[in-house]
């Protein structure tokens, strides 16, 4: 069992704190993706698990053992680096087998293991080449093989796919998932690519500015983002945001348009200012005047199975994803229909998601 338990972990460089007290429990065999923009502290957190960065405060335990003061080699983790970090002066076989060589395994046994692992990632023909003679995808495989061969308890990935072209990235993503299904080591994968996160993760951890914004399955995070930040970060095309005030039965926009809300939600937060998140794929285009509000059509983007229609609404831009061909005309208004159930409601000041049941729990309403 190699669960990872991260409690109140902080990292500071001098006076700058870059990770502010992170708590996270990772179950044995789970595939966790830490998602966030560059500089959010996700790589730092990963490197603290690996032992490549010291832990300023808090503690990290792997399989019940606190590893704060252990060297990387004592933690049983293997890591795949962003630039692969292959040893340029060693052949593929030497790269893959280096950890075993360091551990003192007999040569014959080591070469046999290298052969088996290399075959499992399709590298059998390249064992005598140097990394400089390999393509990006092959280098990626060498990096994977080098991690696999150690049979680690924990697999760490630091943006391993970001140097690959789009097609190869999808292919390697599938391969990583396949390998995970096979060896079932606890995995922590860091990326800034939300699609990678959504597709790979058992559970997603969304980070922002050194804090965890939300932890949940990709589905949970997509369907009920905990904050404006998460809503905007997850999902492609990106979520639309509008602001307004909550009234009975909906949200009143500044120009008089009204977006419907579920009854319980509207009642709970009546009168407060809110931000509304609307996913482009949950909006429908209707003739002008028939929707929640009207917006001026600007242009559309062809995506193949559907199109993304861009509108100007007051000083905001707004997009709607549609598979059928609505009669839009540049510069002309269209109605936009919003289903009450698809509205994501966030507090205007904190950016946190507003929920119906939270309001019930508020003390003044209980009394």
């Amino acid at each position, binding site marked *: 069992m190699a669960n990872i338990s991260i409690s109140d972990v902080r990292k500071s460089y001098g006076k700058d704190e870059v990770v502010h007290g992170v708590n996270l429990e990772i179950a044995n065999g789970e595939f966790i993706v830490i998602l966030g923009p560059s500089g959010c502290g996700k790589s730092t957190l990963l490197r603290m698990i*690996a*032992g*490549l960065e010291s832990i300023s405060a808090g503690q990290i335990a792997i399989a019940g053992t606190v590893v704060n003061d252990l*060297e*990387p*080699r004592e933690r049983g*983790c*293997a*890591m795949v*680096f*962003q*630039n692969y*970090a*292959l*040893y*340029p*002066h060693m052949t593929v076989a030497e790269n893959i087998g*280096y*950890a075993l060589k*360091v*551990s003192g395994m007999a040569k014959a046994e080591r070469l046999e293991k290298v052969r088996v692992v290399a075959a499992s990632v399709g590298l059998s023909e390249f064992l005598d080449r*140097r990394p*400089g003679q390999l393509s990006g995808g092959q280098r990626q495989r060498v990096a994977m093989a*080098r991690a696999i061969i*150690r049979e680690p308890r924990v697999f760490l990935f630091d943006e391993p796919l970001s140097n690959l072209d789009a097609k190869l990235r999808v292919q390697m993503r599938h391969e990583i998932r396949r390998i995970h299904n096979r060896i079932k080591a606890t995995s922590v994968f860091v990326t800034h690519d939300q699609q990678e996160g959504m597709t790979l993760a058992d559970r997603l951890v969304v980070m922002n500015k050194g804090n965890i914004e939300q932890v949940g399955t990709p589905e949970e995070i997509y369907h009920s983002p905990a904050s404006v930040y998460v809503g905007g970060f997850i999902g492609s095309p990106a979520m639309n945001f509008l602001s307004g005030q909550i009234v009975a039965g909906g949200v009143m926009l500044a120009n008089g348009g009204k977006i419907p809300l579920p009854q319980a939600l509207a009642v709970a937060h009546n009168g407060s200012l809110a931000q509304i998140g609307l996913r482009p794929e949950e909006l429908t285009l209707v003739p002008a005047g028939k929707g929640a509000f009207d917006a001026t059509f600007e242009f559309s983007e062809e995506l193949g199975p559907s199109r993304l229609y861009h509108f100007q609404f007051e000083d905001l831009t707004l997009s709607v994803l549609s598979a059928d061909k609505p009669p839009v005309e540049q510069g002309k208004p269209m109605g936009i229909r919003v289903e009450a159930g698809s509205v994501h409601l966030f507090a205007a000041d904190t950016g946190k998601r507003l929920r119906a049941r939270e309001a019930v729990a508020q003390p003044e309403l209980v009394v």
Partner: protein
Amino acid sequence: MKRAVFKNNWVAALMVAPQLLIIFVFFYWPTSQAMYWAFTLEQPWGGGNTWVGFDNFAAILFDDLYWYSVQVSVVYAIGATVLSVGMALILAVFVDRQLRGFKAYKIGMIWPYAIAAPAVGLAFRFIFNPGAGIMLYLNDAFPGAWDPNGNGTHAMIMVIVAGAWKQIAYNFIFFLAGLQSIPRSLLEAGAMDGARVLRRMRDIQLPLLAPTFFFVLVINITDSFTDSFGIVDTMTGGGPARATNLMVYKIFNDGFQGLDYSGAAAQSIILMFLVVALTVVQFRYIERKVHYT
């Protein structure tokens, strides 16, 4: 690669002229003069010379003192190079580890290179003075333990240490730059693979430093043959009993003190070809083994 092209060739010629002039005046002209002298017999106070063909070279090559000078030069070259390259490598590795206070240390390490060879020689003459300072204590305890004025081996050690000390700074800069160009992630990967500090140095840093190592080696050996004059001149004057009479010092000695211009010219031609040959050999046979990618 982007290339800047001058439309007007005259401007280009004007730009390179000073450099070409310097190379011509201080290298090609003296070299050609030395070539000419090497095949003639020059009068000590000038005024007329006669063509003697290879007589000067023959005289040198049959001279035991010349071969002795070659021998001590080789000892000096190997000793100074091994000592300075080795020390520089160790120091650079530790600065690269960023141990406490490495920044001040780094600057301190670079300074010696700015000191002229005669000044280095003088400073080390004080340090190694058998009758004063630190060496006096040694000689007090063990009489005769340190005698560079009388013992040729001691004199050679002294010259090697001074020469190496001056060269360490130069090597250090290259080694440090070489070490810092090794991606940090390679060492981190090594750490994840279970290698400790020394193992990572041996398996990752040193092999990747090989090109730098080769470059530094060529420069040091060449330098120890040609640039050791200042140190020998201030420290030993080639003595005792020619124990530190390096080839470059012998040229000066025979030419300007012995007034044998022709013999000195022939020696400097030999030295020049020796350095060229050494460099070619090093590039052909050593460089081949140190490049990856």
